[in-house]
C-alpha cells in the first residue's frame, strides 16, 4: 500500500497536475457559491474537456471541482441565506443568523475549518477501509432503504420550527410535489393533467432554489430601499479559539460520520446528509433552543457532513464501480473514458491511479481551505453591495442555473413558481426545509416500497423481519413518539405558565 501511495504521489506531484487541481477547486468554488450552479453542473461541463488530458490530469481537475463545488455553497448560505447547492441547505439555518449578529467571520471560520476536517476524515476512511465499507453498503436492499428513508423523513419533525403541524404539512407538500410526473417503476404519468412538460416531474434544483433563494429575494423586495449600515466584520484568524474548537470536536466528528455513512449509501447523497447531521446535532444538544438563532454548532454539523459525504460517495465508486449520486455517476463516466474500469479490480490493476485520486483529493481539500481562508475578507464585501443591485443579479443567475439542469425553459417557469410558493410559505410561517426533505426522500420511499413488495411478492412482513430494516423502522417509531411527547409537554408548560400569569393578575 505504501508503494502505491508513493507511486500515486509522484504521479500527482507535477506542476501541471497540481495546477489542474487548483483550477478545479477555484472553478468548483465559483460554481458552488452561485445559487443554481452546482458541483454536478461544473463536472458535467468539464468532463468532455478532460478527454484530451492524461488520466491523472483529468481526474485531478474533476476531484478539485467536486471538493470546490460542495464547499463553495457555504459562502452564499452564510452571507445571504441562499443555499448555493443542495449540500448547504442546513448551513443557512445558523450561518445566516450568525452573520446577522455580526459574526460572519466566525461563521466562515467554523464552516471552512470543519468542511476541511470533514472532507479529510472522509478521504482517510475512503483510503483505508473502502472495500469493507462498500461490502456493507451492498447489504442494503429495498427493505433497508425503505426503513432508512422513513426514519429520515421523521427528521422533519425536528426541522418544523414553531409549529409541528405546519412542519408536517410542509413535508407532505414536498412528497406530493415529488409525485408529479412519471411514477417510479411502471412510469405511469401522475398529476400531469395531460401536459407532457410535467412528464418528467419537477427537478430538485428549481424547487430548492425557488423555495429558498427566489423566495428570499421576493421577501427582500418588501423592504424599502435604504442605505444599509455596512457592518464591520472582525476577521482575525478563523475567528474562534482553540477551546471553542475542541468544544465542537465531538459534534464535528459525529456529523462527519453521518456524512460518510449517508454518502456511502447509493442514492441518498449529500443533499440529505447536511440536514440529517444538523437535526442530530440539534437533538443531541443541551441547548436545542439556540439552534436557528446563530449557534456555531449548526454550521459545524452541516458543513462537516456535506464534505464528509464526498469521501462516502466515492467509496462504492472506487471499491465496486457503483455510483452513489449524480456526481459520482459522472465521475464513473470520466474514469471509463480514460480507460479505467471501476470495479473490484481497480485497486489491483490501477492502484497508482487510485492513490493518485486520493492524493488529488487531499491536495484539493487543502487548496479549498486556503482559498476560502484568504477569500473570506473579500466575500464579506459582497454585503456592501446594495441589495437592490445584488439580488437581481442573483435572481438572473438562479434562472440560468435552473435552465442549465436539463436545458428546458420549463424549469425556469417552475423556479419562479416555487419562488412565489416559498414566499407565501415564509409569510405564513411555514418552514421550507421539510419540503426539500420530503421532495428528496418521498420518491425513495415509494420506489423502495414497491421494489421490496416485488421481492417479497406482495408480502409486507420482510420490512419488519429484516434486522437492519426493523431497527430503522423502530427508530422511526421512537422518533415520532418522542416528538409527540415533547410537544405535549411543551403545550402543558405553556398552559401552566399561562394559568400562573392569569392567577398572578
Amino acid at each position, binding site marked *: 500500500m505504501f508503494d502505491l501511495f508513493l507511486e500515486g504521489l509522484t504521479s500527482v506531484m507535477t506542476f501541471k497536475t497540481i495546477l489542474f487541481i487548483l483550477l478545479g477547486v477555484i472553478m468548483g468554488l465559483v460554481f458552488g457559491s452561485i445559487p443554481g450552479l452546482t458541483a454536478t453542473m461544473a463536472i458535467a461541463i468539464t468532463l*468532455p474537456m478532460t478527454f484530451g488530458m492524461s488520466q491523472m490530469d483529468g481526474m485531478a481537475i474533476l476531484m478539485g471541482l467536486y471538493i470546490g463545488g460542495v464547499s463553495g455553497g457555504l459562502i452564499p448560505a452564510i452571507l445571504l441565506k441562499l443555499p448555493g447547492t443542495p449540500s448547504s441547505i442546513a448551513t443557512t439555518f445558523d450561518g445566516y443568523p450568525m452573520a446577522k449578529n455580526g459574526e460572519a467571520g466566525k461563521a466562515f471560520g467554523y464552516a471552512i475549518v470543519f468542511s476541511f476536517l470533514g472532507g479529510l476524515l472522509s478521504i482517510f476512511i475512503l483510503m483505508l477501509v473502502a472495500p469493507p465499507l462498500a461490502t456493507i453498503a451492498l447489504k442494503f436492499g429495498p427493505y433497508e432503504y425503505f426503513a432508512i428513508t422513513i426514519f429520515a423523513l421523521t427528521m422533519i419533525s425536528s426541522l418544523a420550527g414553531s409549529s409541528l403541524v405546519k412542519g408536517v404539512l410542509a413535508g407532505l407538500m414536498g412528497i406530493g410535489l415529488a409525485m408529479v410526473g412519471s411514477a417510479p417503476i411502471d*412510469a405511469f404519468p401522475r398529476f400531469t393533467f395531460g401536459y407532457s412538460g410535467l412528464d418528467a416531474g419537477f427537478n430538485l434544483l428549481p424547487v430548492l432554489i425557488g423555495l429558498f433563494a427566489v423566495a428570499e429575494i421576493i421577501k427582500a*423586495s418588501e423592504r424599502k430601499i435604504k442605505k444599509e449600515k455596512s457592518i464591520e466584520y472582525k476577521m482575525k484568524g478563523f475567528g474562534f479559539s482553540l477551546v471553542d474548537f475542541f468544544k465542537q470536536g465531538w459534534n464535528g466528528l459525529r456529523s462527519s460520520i453521518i456524512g460518510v455513512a449517508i454518502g456511502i449509501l447509493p442514492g441518498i447523497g449529500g443533499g440529505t446528509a447536511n440536514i440529517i447531521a444538523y437535526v442530530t446535532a440539534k437533538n443531541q444538544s443541551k441547548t436545542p433552543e439556540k439552534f436557528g438563532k446563530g449557534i456555531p454548532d449548526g454550521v459545524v454539523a452541516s458543513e462537516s457532513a456535506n464534505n464528509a459525504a464526498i469521501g462516502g460517495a466515492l467509496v462504492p465508486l472506487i471499491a465496486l464501480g457503483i455510483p452513489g449520486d449524480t456526481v459520482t*455517476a459522472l465521475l464513473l*463516466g470520466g474514469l471509463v*473514458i480514460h480507460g479505467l*474500469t471501476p470495479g*473490484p479490480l481497480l485497486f489491483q490493476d490501477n492502484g497508482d491511479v487510485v492513490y493518485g485520486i486520493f492524493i488529488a483529493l487531499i491536495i484539493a481539500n487543502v487548496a479549498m481551505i486556503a482559498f476560502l481562508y484568504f477569500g473570506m475578507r473579500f466575500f464579506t464585501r459582497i454585503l456592501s453591495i446594495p441589495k437592490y443591485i445584488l439580488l437581481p443579479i442573483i435572481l438572473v443567475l438562479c434562472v440560468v442555473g435552473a435552465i442549465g439542469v436539463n436545458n428546458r*425553459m420549463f424549469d425556469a417557469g417552475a423556479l419562479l413558481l416555487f419562488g412565489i410558493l416559498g414566499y407565501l410559505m415564509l409569510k405564513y410561517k411555514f418552514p421550507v426545509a421539510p419540503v426539500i426533505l420530503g421532495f428528496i426522500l418521498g420518491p425513495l420511499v415509494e420506489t423502495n416500497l414497491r*421494489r421490496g413488495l416485488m421481492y417479497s411478492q406482495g408480502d409486507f412482513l420482510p420490512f419488519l423481519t429484516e434486522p437492519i430494516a426493523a431497527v430503522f423502522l423502530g427508530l422511526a417509531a421512537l422518533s415520532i413518539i418522542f416528538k409527540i411527547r415533547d410537544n405535549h409537554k411543551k403545550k402543558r408548560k405553556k398552559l401552566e405558565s399561562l394559568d400562573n400569569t392569569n392567577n398572578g393578575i
Partner: protein
Amino acid sequence: MKLVLKPLVVLLAIMFLTAIIVGCSNEESSSESTGNTEETAEAEQTDEAEESAETVADEMNDSSEDAVDYPTEPITFVVPAGAGGDTDLNARTLGKYLEEELGQPVVISNVTGAGGTVGAREVLDAEADGHTALFFHNSMLLNKILGLVDFSYEDMKLAGIAVLDQGNTFMVSADSEFEDLQDMIEFASANPGEVSIATEVGGFTHLQLLALEKDQDIELNIVDVGGAADKIAALLGGHIDIVPTSLGLVTEYVESGDMRSLGIMAEDSVDLMPDVPTFKEQGVDSSFEKFFFLGFPEETPDEIVEAFSTALEKVVNNEEYVAEANKFLVSPTYMNPQEAFDYMQETEAYYTELSE
C-alpha cells in the same frame, strides 16, 4: 398609509413575477411554434430544392458535395439512461470519435426517467436543427409496445444504427448453485416463482424474461431493481439470484471471480466472447441483440441527417473506435437510415409477438 403600501408592493411584485412566468412560457411556445412553422416551411423548401438539386446533380453525374452548413454548434446526445451504464458508455465512446469527424463537441446529456421515455420525448420536442440527437436502444420499441408512450422510431428521423451488442447475458453470483442455464430452468420449473431475477419494468431485459418464461413454460419472480449499476449492486449484495445484463458491463466482476455468466442470447457464438455458450446451445430458443441507434426530431432537414449519417459511417469504420468499443464487448456496426428503419420494423414485429 404605510400599512397599506407594504402588502400592495408585495402584491405587485408577485403579479410582476407571474407576468414574467406567463410571458416567458407564452414567448417560448409562440417562438417555438413560429420556429416550427418556419422550419417546416424551410424543410419543404429544402425538400423541393433538394429534389431539383438532385436532378441537377444527377445530370452532373453526382459530383455535388453536400454544401449544408452543419454542424454549427455543439451537438447534444440525449441519453435516456443514467451515467455509467452501457448506453451512456457507448454514447460517450461514439461521441468522442464523432467529435473529431464533425468538428463540433458532442455533449452527452443524461435524461433519465420513465424507462427512457422522458429523454426520448425531449428529443422529439427539441429544435429540429440536427444539434439534438437521441442515442437509445431497443427500449424505444418496447415503450410503445407496452403502451407507455404513443410515439416510436417512426416519429423520428433515424440517422442509423451504430453499435450492436450481442453479449446479452444472465449473470449469477460466483457462489450460486446454478452452473448453467439448464440448472436454473430445472429449478424454476420445480419451484415456480422462487428464482428472483432482476429487471427494469418495461425495459429490454423484461422482454428477455418474458421470452424465456414463454419458451420454457416456467414462472420467475421478476423484480425491478433499477438500472445497470443498481443491478450489479443487487447481485453483489445477494439480493437477487439472476441479473440479465450486458457481458461488457461485468467483465471486471467475471475476472475478479465475483460473478459467472449463464450464457448469451446470441444467434451464433460471438467472436468477442468465444468461451460463453449461447442460450440456443443450451436448448433455449431465445436470441436477442441490443442495438444502439441515433435519431433526430421528425422535421430535421434530410441533408443534415445525411451529413450526420455519413460522419457516423466513417466513425463506425474507424479502426481505433472499433478497437475501443470491442473492449466493452460490443460490435460497431453501421446501418444507414433505411436499413436501420427496416431492422427496427422487423424487430418490433418480433417483440410485439413475444409480448402478446
